[in-house]
């Protein structure tokens, strides 16, 4: 039953998305507090779930793929609530909410083993490593959201075909390119600290996971440094890299779970 707040949170995010989609379709969309309120409510419910789960297992709830997905969607909403006000608040939410709904629906409905592993002795470095790495992926997810918005707006401007509501509510492309870059930078910094703290963990970490973390770090660093490629390619790369990272994260955890069995 600890999943109840999570189900309610998913409904909040779904409501936020449906509301914005409806308002955009009817052309009556204006920046409103509704998205912010529903997203914030969903965030509180997510936090409640993570708190219950953390209390139950006596550690940061990042012990299986289900928990990783929930922690990831929590990080995405946290970053949205932090960076959203700097851009067009509700429309960034409109793009973030379906991503969060998708991740949480997969977590809740897909056949993912959710067997929490209680603490065998607390290691703050391990928890720092895991938490910062997942928050970094949250930043990469938001970078891909900003990248997606950039590509939509850029296409509208290039082809002169405007979907009026989308066009008017979208931020300027230069703002989206800046948001994309800053979120990539934040993600790389967080992942750097996350990986470094992994080396401080007393117990031995799974070398495959650690190596993959290093590979993703290198990929994102390369994207970050490739600014001369232009904002369009960077936006595209940030979407591809995030899709790759989330798929690999699932694959690796699946393999680790299978090995444990």
């Amino acid at each position, binding site marked *: 039953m600890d999943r109840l707040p999570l189900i309610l949170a998913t409904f909040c995010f779904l409501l936020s998305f449906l509301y914005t989609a409806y308002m955009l379709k009817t052309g009556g969309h204006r920046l409103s507090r509704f998205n912010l309120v529903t997203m914030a409510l969903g965030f509180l419910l997510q936090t409640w779930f993570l708190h219950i789960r953390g209390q139950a297992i006596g550690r940061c709830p990042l012990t299986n793929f289900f928990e990783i997905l929930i922690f990831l969607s929590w990080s995405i909403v946290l970053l949205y609530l932090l960076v959203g006000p700097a851009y067009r608040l509700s429309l960034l939410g409109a793009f973030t909410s379906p991503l969060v709904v998708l991740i949480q629906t997969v977590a809740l409905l897909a056949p993912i083993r959710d067997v929490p592993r209680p603490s065998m002795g607390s290691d703050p470095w391990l928890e720092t490593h895991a938490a910062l790495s997942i928050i970094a992926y949250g930043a990469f997810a938001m970078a891909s959201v900003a990248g997606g918005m950039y590509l939509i707006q850029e296409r509208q401007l290039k082809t*002169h075909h405007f979907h009026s509501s989308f066009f*008017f509510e979208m931020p300027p492309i*230069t703002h989206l390119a800046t948001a994309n870059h800053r979120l990539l930078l934040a993600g790389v910094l967080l992942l750097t600290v996350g990986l470094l703290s992994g080396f401080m963990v007393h117990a031995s970490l799974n070398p495959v996971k650690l190596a993959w973390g290093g590979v993703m770090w290198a990929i994102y660093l390369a994207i970050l440094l490739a600014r001369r490629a232009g904002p369009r390619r960077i936006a595209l790369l940030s979407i591809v890299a995030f899709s790759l990272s989330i798929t690999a994260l699932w694959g690796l955890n699946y393999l680790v779970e299978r090995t444990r069995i």
Partner: protein
Amino acid sequence: MNVLCLGVSHQTASVEVRERFAVSESQLSRISREIGALPGIAESVIVSTCNRVEFYAASPNAPEALASLRAYLEERSPVHANGNGNGLAASELPAEREPFYILNGPASIDHLFRVASGLESMVIGETEILGQIKKAYATASGAGTTARHLNKLFQRAFNVAKEVRTKTSITRGAVSVGSVAVDLAEKIFGSLAPCRVMILGAGETSELTARALQSRGVKSLFVSNRSYDRAARLAGEMGGSAIHFDEWDRHFSKIDILISSTAAPHAIVTPEKLAPVMHRRPNRPLFVIDLAVPRDVDAAVNHLEGVYLYDIDSLRAIANQGLAVRHREIARCEDLIARHVREFHEWLTADPAQRHSIHFPVISKEA
């Protein structure tokens, strides 16, 4: 109590007729007071803009008020085509039709709400009219010709206009070449204050477009023209710098927006010229507005990353789309207005003792 409206507008009368009835700002208070003192008229407001001249009155006896108002206007129109004080009598108007429209009761309330919301404007949804009505009301109020009924009516009209603006898309979308260019520039750059603009070929449309950009914050401007004197004159007028025509492409790397309208018979801005410039500035877009016919800019320029090219046809097409969106919104606006007209008319015709029990719903400030 009744609300009446008698007026002429761009829909009913030519500019020659309208200008003869127009009331200048300096005469507004005096004429308001004169009309307010006519038999049957208790309160009055005059709205006089370049597109309309309207006399609003609150009256306990509508036929008497109308007759005296018409007699007043027939006796002497308040203002004068030639400025010599001789107005145009109604008898001098074209015989074939009456230029005035006369509205009474709910129709006059509906009309004011529509005018304030921009539905009766030449450019549907324009917002300048609201400011003009506010000013007209303030003048009448200052002259002491408004009281309870017109005060409430005009305050209500301002609220309705605000609601129409926030709850519908009637003001959305640019409807002129200049405003489309500004909208697009803001969707590319955000704030236009740091943007540098180059005008290539000092034509009238390019000047208007540049002025529209300046009105949104553009500060840095270069002007280049085959005639350097003309470039220098325009640059001087607009607070920019003039560039010799054979040097304009050397300044490409500095600019964010190019407005081109030369008389060149072939494209002078080509991908070959722009590609090296864009390569050096991969994270800085370039907005190219080609107003020339034949076009100054090779269409292939739009394929370069970071370059957004719009020619005169595409700008006009977007302006027409904006206009079409506004026309589609009219029905939604009318639904909103109709509700407020009903409520106001109920209040107006209610027994004074019962009026306190009729409450207008609060119009939300945010949609």
